């Protein structure tokens, strides 16, 4: 009979043999204990490993914020740019060397606030890059101000009476901007992230990953682990991701389903 210690030892060994940590750099993530970003990190790393991509062929571009630090924690090439500008730089990287696998990562403030003007154009240009939006609906690195995706009524030091603006829905935006691959994911489901990332990286075109995640330090009210875990569920079985219109209709009324909402079917060879 296996003792708990034995089972743990076997698990550790299997993780080591999977080489899943090889893609991590020696830098300790600066994220708070319990941060959802660890789950996203794990999900992305797994995808890159399982796809068998050489680490030196991957470039991760980021903006500013807690998610902006992401590249420092990966043993790939990384370009930590300024606030909101990961997408322009990522497109330049892809045009500069199309053989590279290019990821842009960033938070909701970075991508929907200051950088919101680049998102539609990156989507409609449809370069083969992958954009992962870490959406915890808060500015964490500046200690808890409301972001463009913060639900109404969120009280912070910057919004003492509660937020009043309509939150942005990044999945809906991506679908309407014409992104050719759109997935909604959850930091508490790294395996789901890995699966979608693998499909999205393989997809030739602009792939968007909207990842729900939690800021354990500054949001005790809305996007907490408990709330998110209770809300989310997979897209219904048999959901057909080939229909943009149906995807938009679903996203308009469904904030909670996770999975690949839309993937443009491959066109015939040109």
């Amino acid at each position: 009979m296996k003792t708990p210690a034995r089972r743990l030892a076997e698990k550790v060994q299997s993780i080591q043999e999977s080489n899943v940590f090889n893609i991590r750099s020696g830098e300790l993530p600066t994220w708070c204990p319990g941060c959802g970003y660890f789950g996203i990190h794990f999900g992305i790393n797994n995808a890159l490993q399982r796809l068998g991509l050489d680490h030196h062929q991957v470039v991760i571009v980021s903006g500013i914020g807690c998610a902006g630090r992401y590249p420092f924690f990966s043993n790939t090439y990384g370009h930590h740019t300024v606030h909101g500008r990961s997408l322009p730089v990522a497109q330049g990287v892809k045009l500069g060397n199309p053989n590279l696998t290019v990821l842009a990562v960033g938070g909701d403030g970075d991508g929907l606030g200051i950088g919101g003007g680049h998102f539609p154009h990156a989507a409609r240009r449809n370069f083969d890059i992958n954009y992962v939006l870490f959406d915890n609906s808060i500015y964490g690195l500046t200690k808890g101000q409301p972001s463009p995706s913060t639900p109404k009524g969120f009280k912070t030091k910057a919004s003492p009476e509660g937020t009043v603006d309509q939150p942005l829905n990044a999945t809906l935006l991506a679908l309407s901007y014409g992104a050719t691959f759109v997935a909604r994911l959850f930091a508490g489901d790294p395996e789901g992230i890995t699966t979608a990332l693998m499909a999205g990286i393989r997809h030739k075109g602009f792939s968007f990953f909207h990842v729900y995640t939690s800021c354990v330090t500054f949001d005790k009210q809305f996007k907490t682990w408990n709330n998110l875990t209770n809300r989310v569920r997979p897209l219904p079985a048999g959901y057909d991701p080939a229909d943009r219109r149906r995807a938009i209709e679903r996203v308009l009324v469904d904030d909670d389903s996770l999975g690949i909402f839309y993937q443009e079917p491959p066109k015939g060879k040109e």
Partner: protein
Amino acid sequence: MNRIDLTIEICGLSGDGTIAAGGLLNEAMSRAGFSALAFDSYPAEIRGFGRCVTRSRFGFDRQIALENQTNLLISLDDEQSLSRLPFLAADAVVLFDNHPPSPVAEGKSIAGHARPAMSLFGAPFRDLAAAASGSAKGRNLAALGVLAGLLNLPVDAFRERIGKKFKSKGEKVAAGNIRSFDAGLEYVLKTYPDRLRPLPVPAAPAGQAEKVLWSGNVAIGEGALAAGLKNYFGYPITPATPIMEYLAARLPAKGGRVLQVEDEISAIGAVLGSFYTGARAMTATSGPGFALMTELITQAVSAESPAVIVDAQRGGPSTGLPTKTEQSDLLAAVFGGPGDTPRIVIAPTDVTECYHLTARAFPLAEKYQTPVIVLTDFYLDNRVENIERPSISADAVADALLKPAPDQAGSYHRYQVTPSGISPRALPGTPGFQHNITGLEHDERGVPDFSPGNHQKMSDKRDRKIQGALADLDPPEEYGDPGPLDVGVVAWGSTFGSALDAVQSARDQGLKVGCLKITALFPYHEDRIQAFMDRSKTILIPELNHSGQLNTLIGHLGRGRIVRLNQSTGIPLYPSTILGKIHELIGEDRS
């Protein structure tokens, strides 16, 4: 043989074909062997019913500046042309339409305002064009015909250029326009046979290099192509847009890409991304767009990313004067942005230098891993000069990237501190050299590090690196006699040509004056600039801005009297203005 110095102006209302006629005139005169420098003035609104003026200076010698006096005016609209009277020479020649469609309002006919010594030549431009081609639209070409006949210019050169220009509109339009030109020509020969003023034509050029009639913007595009530009990212803005359009027509055929992106921030971001992978990239903008790029430019300084940025200055601040010229982005280009951000700023002074400095900006950016800002201005971007077709050697634009030694795989430090400040740079895709670049202060590995010693060390490194670039930048060039000068003029950008023209005139008058051309604005050659200043009793710094930005940058090097000559009018500084100031300064000294 007489030296020719002839400035011709065409003035009309937008829609009169003024700019088109000016362009044809420049092309035909260039083809006939004249040297040319031309600059148009037009309103910022496409349909604004504004005044359009083309000014072209022709001669046998190379033209380096426009002067503020016009020898010959072609009036396509008398009401507009009246405003040009103050700029006409006392003995100017005026060509005008003597049968306009409706009687010119009382007092608005240019003929009624000409001074006594001027020569007037009336010709029914509209009627001639209408009779020849069936449309009065060709009145600008009939006017050119009158001009060509009056001065005995090589008419075949005109006919050829007209035919070529209108070819795309069909044979019928092209032929009609040539007939309009011919009608003007015949009219003047028949009507004023005793008053013709044949102009000496330059001797046929023998064994001369091919000449091209280029604007500064074309030269910038050609320079970038010569340097093997791979990706151009831009956003429309006057006066830089023609660079994007020029490259859009040519770069794809060379395997490159031109992308019009959503804003200037995106443009500079994509330039940084492309250069990061080793693919040469460029963007061009003007003041307002340059302001938007500032943050990423400072990121590039910190992350040590190459970039080539053309800032085609126009009148500022803010949206300012979109179609007027100014040199008021100098300090923004050199210092703009948060933090200490040394970068390379170079400024051409003529069309040929637009080509060379743009081409050389790429290896500079690569070698020193920094943004290189090529600072031009409207007067330089939009002027045309006929110049010997420039070329640059493959060596001068060769890949200047310093790569790390292969044995550093696995232990590579992106920001290794070196005596030169230059750290070997590995390109993405190189196995074993993975690293991060960042605008956060970082240690040699590229990992954020905000410790006091590290920030000092890295700030020193970046400064040392840029100062070291002086070795690859053109030193200032001196013009005039060596030895003590009563006035030493220090100039940059488009103003330099006017300064040199003024200094040449002053020297012809026996005055002890000289001129210093500065193209390396940052870093700059302190010793050379100071040496010139030290032998000048008075240092004169003429600039097209209000605050004297070059003086702010380098004035501290002067140990004698420094006098600024600043003009915020949106129009070029003319040699006569600078010459007047030189006279004033020397007169003060003598009185």
